[in-house]
């Protein structure tokens, strides 16, 4: 099988989406779900073949003279591909409930852009070289832009401006030269186990600069000060925030960094030079600072956005630590954070649909009317914090372990501090929902209804699935770990 097929379902479904349009919206959404399941099946096929030990590559498209577009399958990408395709199905189911419940406009355009973005993610996941990854990265930026501005309000437009401006300038001004630098120095952009830069004679400072170009240029990874787009992009409909700004888009960012660290620099090279030492403090600062900012936000999605920034920098730290354990933890964290954060976003959307609340201070006592949603929120929050019984704990353990492998305790301290901060800003939401006495919290002063008032069934179903996965991954991380464990380090 050829990884290029994974681009097909999300692209092929687009004519169907447009064709069915608003008039046959059941058919439209059904076609997306079918495409999603097909995509998941294809990814699973890739997984099976990979496990069977087959090398899986696509043909080449020579974009530049010596550098072509090419796809191939390796463990990191497989993890990302499986994750994104699984969550695409779930998110589609969720958005059916959300978009209808919320009466969103232009749903057809929404679904088209969504599918395009997923195609981009597949391209990124299975990119065989840096050029392909870069191209997919840019494609995702452009495909998701209309989603950010979906609401069409002034605020959405400002956000879209910032989104496109920051991501595009970052990738053109920093990521592109980094890639060209690699091409010039190593004469190849391929991802090779052990990296391609180890014997091209880059000095330590040059390595540091190159690494910095990658880290800051990958604006989607949202390291400070490249993070501003992410909170702004929260004006998008919640399913977008959920899949794109908790999974697809931001994870593409950190995925780029993990790939580059593993297959372009090579962890041996990075860990023997001090190049990453200059950047680790920035990532650590991002972890802590954005947690603190999150703490001050009363808007739920804004708080989740800053939480995402903080969590992404965990993975950036993992990449920069450049040990087998930390990178393993980083890839693992992509998955655990994805499930945790998407649950939280789903819940935020469900709350918005069912009770029209966006501010955390209005959500007190909500556990009475939306017990399933808020219960799932608690699980998601535990996963993000890294507490049992949720999967976030394992990835955090590995990243911390990686910090030790790199003989640096201070980064553990950062993770620990962030854990405590995470509790401070996530737990109150769930807890206040359940334990705040049920007092009138509406502006009008009307008491909350005492019977269940949950989100539409489709959305609820998605929430239950993702939160269950948080727990399942805590109990059974082994299959995922063995897949990540098959990364070739050198």
């Amino acid at each position, binding site marked *: 099988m050829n990884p290029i097929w994974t681009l097909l379902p999300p692209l092929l479904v687009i004519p169907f989406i447009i064709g069915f349009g608003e008039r046959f919206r059941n058919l439209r959404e059904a076609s997306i779900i079918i495409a999603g399941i097909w995509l998941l099946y294809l990814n699973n096929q890739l997984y099976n073949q990979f496990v069977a030990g087959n090398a899986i590559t696509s043909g080449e498209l020579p*974009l*530049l003279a010596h550098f072509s577009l090419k796809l191939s399958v390796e463990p990191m990408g497989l993890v990302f591909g499986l994750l994104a395709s699984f969550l695409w199905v779930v998110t589609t189911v969720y958005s059916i409930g959300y978009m209808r419940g919320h009466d969103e406009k232009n749903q057809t355009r929404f679904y088209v852009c969504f599918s395009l973005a997923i195609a981009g993610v597949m391209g990124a996941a299975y990119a065989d070289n840096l050029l392909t990854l870069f191209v997919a990265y840019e*494609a995702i930026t452009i495909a998701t832009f209309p989603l950010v501005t979906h609401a069409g309000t002034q605020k959405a437009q400002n956000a*879209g401006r910032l989104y496109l*401006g920051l991501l*595009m300038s970052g990738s*053109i001004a920093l990521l592109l*030269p980094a890639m*060209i630098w690699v091409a*010039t120095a190593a004469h190849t952009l391929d991802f090779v186990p052990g990296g391609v830069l180890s014997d091209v004679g880059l000095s330590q400072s040059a390595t540091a600069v190159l690494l910095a170009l990658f880290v800051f240029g990958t604006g989607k990874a949202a390291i400070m000060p490249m993070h501003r787009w992410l909170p702004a992009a929260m004006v998008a409909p919640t399913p977008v925030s959920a899949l794109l700004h908790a999974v697809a888009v931001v994870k593409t960012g950190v995925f780029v960094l993990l790939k580059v660290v593993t297959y372009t620099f090579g962890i041996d090279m990075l860990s023997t030079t001090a190049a990453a030492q200059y950047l680790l403090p920035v990532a650590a600062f991002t972890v802590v600072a954005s947690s603190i900012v999150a703490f001050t936000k009363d808007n739920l999605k804004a708080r989740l956005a800053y939480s995402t920034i903080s969590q992404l920098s965990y993975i950036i730290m993992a990449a920069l630590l450049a040990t087998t354990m930390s990178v393993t933890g980083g890839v693992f964290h992509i998955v655990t954070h994805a499930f945790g954060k998407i649950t939280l976003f789903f819940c935020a959307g469900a709350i918005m649909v069912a009770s029209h609340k966006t501010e955390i201070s209005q959500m007190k006592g909500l556990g009475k009317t939306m017990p399933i949603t808020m219960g799932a929120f608690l699980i998601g929050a535990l996963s993000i914090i890294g507490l049992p019984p949720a999967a976030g704990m394992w990835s955090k353990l590995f990243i911390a372990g990686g910090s030790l492998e790199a003989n640096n305790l201070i980064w553990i301290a950062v993770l620990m501090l962030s854990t405590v901060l995470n509790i401070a800003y996530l737990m109150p939401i769930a807890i206040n929902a359940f334990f705040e006495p049920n007092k009138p919290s509406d502006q009008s002063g009307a008491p909350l209804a005492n019977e269940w008032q949950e989100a539409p069934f489709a959305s609820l179903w998605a929430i239950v699935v993702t939160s269950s996965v948080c727990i399942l991954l805590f109990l059974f991380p082994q299959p995922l770990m063995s897949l990540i464990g098959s990364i070739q380090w050198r």
Partner: protein
Amino acid sequence: MIATQLPALQIIIPLFAAPLIVLARRSELAWIIALVANFLCVLVAWDLFQLVNEQGIIRYSLGGWAAPTGIEYFVDTVNAPLLLLVSSISAIVVAYAYHSVKKSIDSTKHYLFYAAWMLCLSGLLGMLITGDAFNVFVFLEISSLSTYMLIAFGNDRRALTASFRYLVLGSIGASFILIGIGFLYAATGSLNMLDLAQRIPNASSERAILVAFSFISIGLMIKSAIFPLHAWLANAYHFAPISVTAFLAGTATKVSLYVLLRFLFSVFGTQYNFEYLLLNVILLPAAVFGFLIMSVVAIFQTDLRRMLAYSSVAQIGYIVAGISLATQAGITAGYAHIINHALIKTALFMSVGCIIYRLGHAHRPSLDNLIQTMPLTCVAFIVSGLGLIGVPFTGGFISKFTLISASMEKGWWVMGGLVLVSSVLAIIYIGRVVDVMLFRKQRLPNPMPQGRNEAPLSMLVPMYVLIGLSLYLGVYGSETLTVSGEAAKQLLGGFR
């Protein structure tokens, strides 16, 4: 028979089409003749392109007079692709021009307009194909004079002053070139380029060669609108009929750049230019300041044509930067950008033309929410704009990648960085337009009726053909790069 006469046909077809158009007089007929002639040109250029690829250099002695004495046409891997490019762009723009011209120019003058166009085209193609230094000047004058006329067709009164200023500057440039050629002839006794290339290293008067070099390069810099000699361009592009602007943006400056390349590398030789004549002391700063300052200027323009004009100067800066690297990779990048920028910028001007067709002007603040009324035009503008920024799958990405890579290879890190800075500036100036098109609520009263109000299909189709072409070259970028690489090899190797 025809095959051997192809180089001559390349010039003769448009040249003879001009009087034919004048005779035809009726505007539709004039347009059809121009279109047909132009497409024949494309065919000829295509054949030449194939031939060069198969057989290598084609030398054609005009009228049967042998080389050093007679005028020689000379097709190699450097100019063959450009012949194809210029004739194709011209053909597409002519096809596009029909409605635009009909609306903006008095119908009694249409035949003159198309005749001038054909003359201009034959001048440009002549500059490309000729192997004779003096002949270059002749064709330059043909194209220039017809260009002044074309610009003057603009229905803004300022078009006349713009045309006049261009005329003064263009004439200065042309006369500089003439002076330079004169000096060359005095020093070497030859006008044939191949001949010159061999004679220059052992010429009698070195000073005469140096003076010739200075005059020729300054003259060509004026014609190519290299910063800071670009000042004629903004007004000319702004006030000319939009189809003329589109045509010129894709062809005129590019052809002049080709001539510059020819003289610098083929005639004078690399060694001479860059180590002896310190050309990079002039060209490199001109390039770098050009793409930086002009990009900034473009940001603040409110008229789309003017913005794109300054953007053109900036993009020419990239090309010159590639040339001033004087390496295989650098010239490859510069050459590739000639091709890519020609396609992209023409497409951009065409989309602006569509806007003007409906709105009567292209003032940015009145484009609010244009996506609602002219979606296809806006999409065309955005896609081409992405090419200007250098997003993957567009030609801009290919040439910019190669350019930065080339400057890094040579160790000119700073220049590579500045190219990127200017790319970010491009994001800003394109972004400002896109922003207005997509997001702004209507601020100025819009003369157009509500609902869809696209430009006619005859404008949209050619525009999208061109965009398709540029996207094709963005996806199959290695084809551009192969062609450019061959050209660069040819240029650096000198005449052989």
